[in-house]
């Protein structure tokens, strides 16, 4: 049986990807870039699940990736609708410009 890499390497790659996404969501000020960061995080979670499915030779991990994809799709649909809505209301997608309460 040909072998690939240890499961720990898959986990490490998923962790790096997840932290890149989290860093993007925290650091960027553009609402669309924040949403992109969340997408990267969800994709990284899917990678970890698929590695786990292969490690334990169970299909449950792959089943959960389907649900993660459904959650990602609905999250991005609602998120982008919210962005369009707030752009209509305030004329900007920059998170630093939502300072109405400050006067």
């Amino acid at each position, binding site marked *: *049986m*040909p*072998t*690939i*890499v*240890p*499961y*720990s390497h*898959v*986990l*490490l*790659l998923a*962790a*790096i*990807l997840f*932290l890149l*996404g*989290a*860093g*993007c969501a*925290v*650091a*960027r*000020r*553009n609402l*669309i*870039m924040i*949403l*992109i960061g969340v*997408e990267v995080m969800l994709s990284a979670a*899917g*990678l970890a699940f*698929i*590695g786990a*499915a*292969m*490690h334990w*030779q169970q*299909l*449950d991990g*792959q*089943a959960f990736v*389907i*649900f993660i*994809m*459904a*959650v*990602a*799709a*609905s999250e*991005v*649909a*609602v998120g*982008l*609708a*919210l*962005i*369009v*809505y707030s752009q209509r209301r305030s004329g900007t*997608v920059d998170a630093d410009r939502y300072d109405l309460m400050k006067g």
Partner: protein
Amino acid sequence: MSIYAVIFYVLGAVIIATTVLAITRRNVMHAIVCLALSFIATALLFYLLGAPFLAMLEVVIYAGAIMVLFLFIVMMLEIKADNRSLGTYLKQWILPLLLAVTSLLFICLLILLESGSSQPLTLTAASPLAFGRFLFKKYWLAVEITSYLLFVALVGALYLGRGDGTTGG
């Protein structure tokens, strides 16, 4: 090191490089194109890790539908590139970078301490037929709930995105 390990490391490097490119672009359009590349490489990795059906779904849903949705919204809203000075832009990255590196160190430590995952994975693949049978046998209720979630998301997006009524939205 087997050829599959080499493929894994090369794909991993490509994914990390394109994701770093994507999250640091100041022009949102460039970021989305880089991210589509990253998702295609992730789909190849899924295929390598024994999930051909999910690899196809990753291309169709992530690299296809979600990225095109982002592109349409960016084009519709006419979002301009971040025009703050480079210093301000780099300064807002310092703290997130610090936190991410700290978390990564602890994740590395935890993975190293975990001894059960050091033997290499063996190459297997779940056929779409077996996967579909498993999904609808064991997780049929979750599939139904997921379809309901997608429906609610559709209604929510329609409600938020509707016009003010004067344009027939």
